[in-house]
């Protein structure tokens, strides 16, 4: 299955969520892999969180720290810049993906690097850094096991944390035998991991430039951190003589001590562990230890647009834990590819349209990829009210259609119907008149106390649900007959 459709961050028309979801839902193997994986991690996370008597206090502190940072983001970024420079690092600013890629490629070329090693970074997926480096004659090696798997398969990630969640062990075995020339390989996960270890160790030892993302960076001290499991993050940030880190501007946190909040929230929410196997913290350059040249690239790429929306702003609280993916009933069935973005699941449904802007058909469909059940909000370690933002964005999508659609938009049947409905609902006489009209109009449709199929364009609504008919007598009518008065309640 070739899954390299243009995503929300590349050019071209991205398919809508509904179109892509239909394809994913037809893939039985994918659904089996996903179901097993999300159920496992959901149960594990619940145990890891239950162990913490102060989980709610930590969530609240996390939310508040992010809110503080975002409200004063300019000051914190300037402080971060100063701290990193003081510690011997260099800081670059990038307005968008193209500028970020250009800066990183420039650094690699200045060291005549033909190969670079990378630790999993969604920011670099967002900018399509690997493709850009390739066009400049530089080969980028993904070193996270899952990233290696999807890079070898020529696919894209389907989960923030477990990018190859859609692949099972026998598919991975096939891939390694084909692409890495491994022979006599079993499908035992330790054997598969060992093949990757041997292949990548060689890359680590000779790489001149390492590239990473950042989970957090502290304004006060300039300390950047990468949270991981395998040790490839340690390799990439320690062994090559030059290190380049790309981070979204929202990843800054105020002080060193604030790690005490986020380093409790993140591991339990993402891998459901008390602590992830490895976390690296580095402050600029340390003499005689690790890279002697460090570049930090601060990237906007749409984040200031998200910041500009007072309701949408909380989306930037996200610490990329992926807990919301694992609890989402929609994600569990469609998987990550249906979202056509490097940010899948509930967080992707609100982050992607805000980053790329409303008005692209593909990403405009994302706020609707939810049943609004609220499970994502409940597990979010930094309390992003995802349902609230989803509804807010749905409103923006509709308004955009009205504003930008011209005469065609104004005459769009859905639009006309909604406008008429808004008028009817805001006027008592019109509303009661409509009820009487509906009672007469519905008789050919209502069968046994339910409407099973609406006619014409409305049929879509009843495709998946029944509709209750308008009752013989409304509450207002009953109230009036009971009191013998003409006044309805609360009118």
């Amino acid at each position, binding site marked *: 299955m070739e899954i390299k459709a243009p995503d929300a961050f590349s050019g071209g028309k991205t398919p809508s969520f509904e179109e892509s979801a239909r394809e994913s839902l037809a893939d039985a193997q994918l659904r089996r892999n996903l179901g097993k994986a999300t159920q496992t991690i959901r149960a594990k996370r619940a145990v890891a969180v239950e162990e913490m008597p102060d989980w709610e206090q930590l969530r609240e*502190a996390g939310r508040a720290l992010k809110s503080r940072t975002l409200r004063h983001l300019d000051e914190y970024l300037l402080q971060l810049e100063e701290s990193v420079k003081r510690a011997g690092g260099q800081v670059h600013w990038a307005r968008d993906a193209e500028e970020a890629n250009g800066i990183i490629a420039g650094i690699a070329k200045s060291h005549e690097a033909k190969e670079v090693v990378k630790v999993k970074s969604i920011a670099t997926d967002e900018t399509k850094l690997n493709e850009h480096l390739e066009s400049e004659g530089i080969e980028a090696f993904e070193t996270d*096991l899952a990233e290696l798997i999807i890079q070898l398969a020529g696919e894209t990630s389907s989960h923030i944390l477990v990018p190859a969640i859609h692949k099972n062990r026998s598919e991975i075995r096939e891939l390694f035998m084909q692409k890495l020339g491994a022979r006599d390989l079993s499908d035992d996960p330790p054997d598969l*991991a060992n093949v990757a270890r041997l292949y990548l160790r060689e890359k680590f030892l000779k790489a001149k430039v390492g590239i990473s993302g950042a989970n957090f960076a502290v304004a006060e001290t300039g300390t950047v951190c990468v949270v991981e499991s395998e040790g490839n993050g*340690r390799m990439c940030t320690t062994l090559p003589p030059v290190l380049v880190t790309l981070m979204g501007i929202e990843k800054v946190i105020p002080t060193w001590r604030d790690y005490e909040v986020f380093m409790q929230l993140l591991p339990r929410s993402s891998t459901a562990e008390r*602590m992830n196997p490895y976390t690296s*913290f580095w402050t600029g350059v340390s003499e005689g230890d*690790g890279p002697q040249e460090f570049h930090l690239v601060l990237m906007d790429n749409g984040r*200031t647009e998200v910041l500009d929306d007072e309701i949408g702003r909380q989306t930037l609280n996200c610490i990329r834990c992926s807990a919301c993916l694992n609890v989402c009933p929609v994600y569990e069935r469609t998987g990550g590819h249906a979202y056509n973005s490097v940010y899948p699941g509930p967080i992707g449904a609100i982050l992607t349209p805000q980053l790329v802007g409303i008005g692209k058909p593909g990403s405009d469909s994302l706020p609707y990829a939810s049943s609004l059940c609220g499970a994502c909000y409940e597990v979010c370690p930094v309390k992003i009210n995802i349902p609230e933002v989803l509804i807010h964005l749905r409103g923006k999508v509709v308004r955009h259609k009205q504003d930008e659609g011209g005469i065609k938009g104004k005459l769009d049947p859905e639009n006309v119907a909604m406008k008429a409905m808004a008028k009817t609902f805001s006027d008592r006489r019109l509303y009661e008149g409509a009820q009487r009209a509906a009672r007469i109009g519905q008789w050919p449709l209502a069968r046994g106390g339910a409407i099973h199929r609406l006619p014409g364009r409305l049929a879509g609504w009843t495709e998946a649900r029944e509709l209750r008919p308008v009752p013989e007598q409304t509450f207002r009518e009953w109230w009036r007959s009971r009191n013998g008065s003409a006044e309805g309640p609360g009118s």
Partner: protein
Amino acid sequence: MVEVEERFGGRPGLMTSAREEILHRIRRATHDVPKDEHAEDVPVERGYRKRDEAPREEIVARFAERVAEYEATVHRVNEDDLPRAIAEACERRGIEQLVVPPGLPEGWLPDGVELLRDGVSMQLSNEELDGSDGVLTGCALGISQTGTIVLDAGEAQGRRALTLLPDYHLCVVREEQVVGLVPEAFQRLEETVKGEGRAITFISGPSATSDIELNRVEGVHGPRTLEVLIVA
């Protein structure tokens, strides 16, 4: 800043630098924030636990238990027995070449093993580290709540590559180095970070991945075996 950006492929032709423009965009986007509001004015309620009040013995026992839950091997030993415990661990593992960081107590070093000493002026090459059989270090801290070992590139730990390339890490943790909760660890590390700015590594069990069907597999890139000696 502008020169650096130009040198590395930033866009020099534009009127304002990327830095100025991003800062401008942020200020425009946060126009709802009152001008006289300071960052510290935004309330942050820190109602979470800061300190584990349990008895010391309980804190240390929990540390041992939780390190072991990550599939690391844990032994609790007395100070006097430490050299023997180290020698036994190396023998069990069949170590011939052992990497030794600067500042490691000489009394810990086992006999009959070739020592690869990493020096400040004479650093071992990555290939030497990769080809060794293991590394012996101390640590900066242990965190009981999470079973985490913290290295801060200080005394008896050495630079980061030493504990990364060898496939076996034998780590000595003194009981008094074990703190209760995560916030206690960050508090203790604050001075190191603000002072010398040394790199800090949190290690919770051996290298692992859950990338294949979410099965935890020990050892992809880091040391596949972690053995911990907790010294009373």
